[in-house]
């Protein structure tokens, strides 16, 4: 961002003093609230299309060519719907919950870098800030569920709180491994630590044994944190209607969706930053056009992560509540702790090839043992009455 600030300050040299500062503050804010919601709108369309393909149907294709105006139509529909508040609801909290759902999700984007030196805010506590903010999102789910005075809503809220708090732990520990390797909490420094000459791609953390494990842990944690489908028991429609947003309608419901999707996109962005080399890619350090190329690589990787999310959503069945908790505490948490040990080994072993083998063996053996332990008994062979 500094280069751009200098450019702007140069442009407005003779103007009043506060102007460059005001612009320097306004540009990142406008970028975050302008670009990412647009990505959100088209994520919903892509998601419906992709889910349609998975389920052998077309998906939206009526509004505009290939359904390209569908997000606009959805938005208009939700805006014009009646806003129903249950009579017994806690009015103020009921009103506040959707707002609270959006704010942390938007704030998350503040630390996601999209090009060299181009990050809305370069905090030196970057990743820690992201985790601090993302914990606040659980409050929105709780407030919404509690204020609705509906048993299903309350059940959804309780499930949401338990789930988010549980998955926060392995997710943060997975990030600790990256922070240890990069030696900094700043997202720019973390991306910078993944830079390497020659074939740039092998500098990415995901191509180290601990990085791969961390990537998987973090992606699962992020999915659970934003209550995406394999982990969407807070809003499991076949069990508790719609969970915490059962009693929400119209634009408040849309705000909940916005918050959920923005959180998922932001988490995908942070995953890209921490494990997939952020904006790094061929040509990202060229003068002038490098910024554009970097942004292209970043958004390409972001799109891939979003598509991965959609793919998982379309193909995986929802987990049960007990499976969900057991998975977080009995598999993910020990793996995350071992991953930190693996990073330590990696850091202190001079011979990287040997370190690769040692850490890969350690993590692989640990995974096999954990998988054996947590497997719930033998799965009987199903016998079908009529199909065989």
């Amino acid at each position, binding site marked *: 961002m500094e280069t751009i600030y200098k450019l702007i300050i140069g442009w407005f040299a003779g103007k009043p003093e506060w102007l460059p500062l005001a612009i320097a503050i306004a540009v990142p804010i406008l970028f975050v609230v302008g670009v990412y919601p647009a990505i959100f709108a088209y994520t919903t369309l892509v998601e419906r299309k992709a889910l349609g393909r998975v389920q052998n149907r077309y998906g939206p294709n009526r509004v505009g060519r290939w359904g390209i105006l569908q997000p606009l139509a959805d938005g208009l529909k939700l805006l014009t719907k009646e806003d129903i508040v249950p009579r017994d609801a*806690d009015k103020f*909290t009921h009103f506040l919950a959707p707002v609270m759902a959006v704010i942390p999700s938007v704030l998350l984007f503040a630390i996601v870098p999209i090009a060299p030196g181009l990050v809305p805010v370069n*905090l*030196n*506590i970057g990743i*820690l*800030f992201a*985790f*601090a*903010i993302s*914990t*606040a999102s*659980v*409050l929105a789910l*709780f*407030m919404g569920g*509690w204020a609705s*005075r509906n048993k299903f809503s*309350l059940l959804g809220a*309780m499930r949401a*709180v338990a789930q988010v*708090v549980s998955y*926060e732990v392995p997710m943060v520990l997975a990030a600790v491994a990256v922070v240890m390797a990069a*030696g*900094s*909490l700043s997202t720019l420094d973390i991306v910078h630590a993944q830079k390497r000459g020659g074939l740039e791609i092998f500098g990415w953390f995901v191509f180290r044994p601990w990085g791969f494990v961390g990537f998987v842990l973090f992606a699962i944690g992020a999915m659970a944190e934003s209550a995406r489908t394999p982990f969407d028991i807070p809003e499991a429609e076949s069990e508790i209607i719609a969970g915490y947003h059962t009693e929400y309608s119209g634009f408040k419901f849309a705000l909940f969706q916005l918050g959920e999707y923005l959180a998922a996109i932001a988490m995908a962005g942070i995953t890209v930053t921490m494990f997939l080399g952020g904006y790094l890619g061929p040509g990202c350090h060229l003068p002038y056009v490098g910024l554009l190329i970097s942004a292209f690589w970043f958004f390409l990787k972001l799109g891939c992560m979003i598509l991965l999310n959609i793919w998982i959503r379309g193909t995986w069945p929802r987990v049960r509540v007990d499976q969900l908790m057991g998975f977080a505490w009995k598999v993910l948490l020990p793996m995350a702790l071992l991953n930190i040990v693996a990073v330590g080994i990696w850091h202190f072993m001079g011979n990287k090839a040997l370190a690769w083998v040692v850490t890969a063996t350690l993590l692989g053996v640990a995974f096999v043992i954990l998988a054996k332990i947590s497997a719930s008994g033998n799965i009987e062979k199903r016998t079908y009455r009529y199909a065989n």
Partner: protein
Amino acid sequence: MDYAFWIISGITVLGALLAVTLRNLVHCVLSLILFFLGIAAHYFLLRADFVGAVQILIYIGAVAVLILFAIMLTRNVTGADGPREVIGVKWWAGSVIAALTAFLLSFAVSGDKLAGTISPGDKAYVGVADIGRGFVGDWVVPFEVMAVLLTAALIGAVVIALEEIRHRR
């Protein structure tokens, strides 16, 4: 900067007052969260970024959520205290003691002796890396003691809360 101090202080004190005076327990916790946010903002204002982030992470992400869970497990879900008296019989004694404390504390710090401000030359920034090095350097013993304390608290909390189940078996 001055305006920021007064605004944030107002929010903080308002949150604190509401947290101990509202009737509905869940509303109390939500005001408490407002208070925690205000305190975190004060930390950011005082340039203690790390402590501010830790404040949000631990107090809002863990303590407030824990309190909400405890309310859900011990009360009817509305969180209302019902028609019964919320305030203890000796409320005036507690209020007088608190008012006296406030008066004494204000009196003690109102002297000019403590009104120090930092000199501009003294602005060496303490970053996260310094704090990290401190944890494994000079402060390693308190750090390990903290780790033991937290583990003990974790086990203790589980044992206390699970007591009922053990009896039932």
